[in-house]
């Protein structure tokens, strides 16, 4: 589903990603962990081309992200092409980023009606279904300010799912939440994983990674330090840096 080959990303002169190579299979849940500044969020943002990579190759569903290869030259994709690929990738942000001028329902139907051109009726029906699935059918007509952080994040997940993505990216989805609200968001994500959604999750929730993750990738300094089955990596980290990190978060 996702394939990265030696992905590099620079901000100015700072190398944020220093050659990331990994592969995510369909229906797989991959958890990216690591200290802040290790490049996990940046890598996630490269996958849907919110950030442009400087070197290496990144493929989603077998197609290059952001470029088209013609002969041995790469051509930048037009906006319409980038936009079409992004529709297949859902993204959930640390700070929710719900549209504050729209109700929960308005947030969920925005992209289906505007981007996919669905009728309002069709989009509303689907949105009601999704909001029910994240347990917020009764909050449909509330504006984001009237919702708790956990509820906002669940709306954000419903909003991403409304585009029927093949892949979901989660950028620290529970880091901005009060501890008592983390569970409700993780429950929704657990359900998604059980339904077979391909997910890449940047997280500090090691319990979630152990329970739901198929693969755990530990990143530091823009490189992958170690990866494997979450149970193995968490129980028997092979590298010093992984051990040091885990001793602080577990």
């Amino acid at each position, binding site marked *: 589903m996702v394939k990265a080959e030696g992905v590099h990303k620079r901000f100015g002169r700072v190398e944020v990603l220093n050659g990331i190579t990994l592969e995510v299979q369909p229906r797989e849940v991959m958890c990216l962990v690591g200290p802040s500044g290790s490049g996990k969020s940046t890598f996630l943002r490269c996958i*849907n081309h*919110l950030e442009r990579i400087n070197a290496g190759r990144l493929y989603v569903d077998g197609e290059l992200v952001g470029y088209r290869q013609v002969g041995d030259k790469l051509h930048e994709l037009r*906006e*319409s092409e980038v*936009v*079409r690929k*992004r*529709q297949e*990738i*859902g*993204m959930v*942000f640390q*700070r929710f*980023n*719900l*549209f*504050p*001028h*729209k*109700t929960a329902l308005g947030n969920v139907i*925005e*992209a289906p009606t*505007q*981007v996919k051109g669905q009728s309002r009726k069709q989009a509303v029906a689907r949105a009601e279904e999704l909001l029910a699935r994240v347990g917020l059918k009764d909050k449909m007509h509330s*504006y*984001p*300010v*009237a919702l708790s952080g956990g509820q906002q994040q669940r709306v*954000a997940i419903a*909003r*991403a799912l409304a*585009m029927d993505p093949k892949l979901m990216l989660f950028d620290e989805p529970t880091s901005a939440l009060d501890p008592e609200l983390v569970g409700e968001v993780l429950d929704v994500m657990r359900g998604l994983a059980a339904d077979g959604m391909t997910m890449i999750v940047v997280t500090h929730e090691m319990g979630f990674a152990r329970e739901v993750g198929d693969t755990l990738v530990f990143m530091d300094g823009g490189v992958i330090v170690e990866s494997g089955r979450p149970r193995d990596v968490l129980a028997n980290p092979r590298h010093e840096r992984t051990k040091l990190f885990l001793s602080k978060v577990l």
Partner: protein
Amino acid sequence: MTGTATETDETTARPEEIRAVPVRHYGRWVAAVIVALIAAALTYSVFTNARFRWGDIGHFLFDHRILHGVVVTLELTALSMIIGIILGVLLAIMRLSPNPLVAGASSFYIWIFRGTPVLVQILLWYNVSALYPKISFGLPFVHLNANDLITPFVAAILALGLNEGAYMAEIVRAGLLSVDEGQTEAAHALGMTRLQTMRRIVLPQAMRVIIPPTGNETISMLKTSSLVSVIAYAELTYSAALIDSVNYLVIQLLIVISIWYLFLTTILSIGQYYLERHYSRGSSRQDPGGSILAKIFSGMFSVRHGQ
């Protein structure tokens, strides 16, 4: 040291409600008395001074020339603001463009039009035929006589509208920048184009920041439009000047038009209140605070940038 805390249960009696003697604010009472005295003295003098000639003021308040002036002033205000807002959005988006030449052109425009007095701009547009006697817009077979094209009305609209564009550009830009970047990212991640993101997500949120100063601009424009009296265009102020040049009731006519300006700015302030309320949806848990009266008074007393 160990702190203690007692668990609250139903048996805990609610302590007595506090009824304290309030602090007496003698200073406020003195100030209130002084303000009331001054207000009474002013009111008394205004209504007993026969030189005000309130009868004449009442007579000219609905004179057909004055009423026509009111309509013209409203037209000028509306047209200039429409030009100003469209130009402002355009200039703001240009200014945020990654192309340095496009951004620079916008900055240059704002520099010129904000840096010179509106009064001077009105006179310049009125006299533009001295610079360009023939206007062709660069098109073949189009040779318009500038004196025919630039009537006082056109000069007034051009001067007020183009000047307003510079101010609106800054207001719109501040509004666009006030919207969190996460909003744009979320919209892009959902597959929205830049145009869709601007129109559906960023602009509606920027409106909350853009509307209040735009309301102030409109109120200012209503008053600034009086400057076009210098090119003998019969809006409200010039209409009054035409009348008092015959009957010498200068003060009375100035009061007449002041009453009209005050009435119109009040109406605009009420409109602004409802517009602001509409665009603040989702920004706070309650209805936007503040009474309508407070909004209206603050709107009327807003200070116009230097002229």
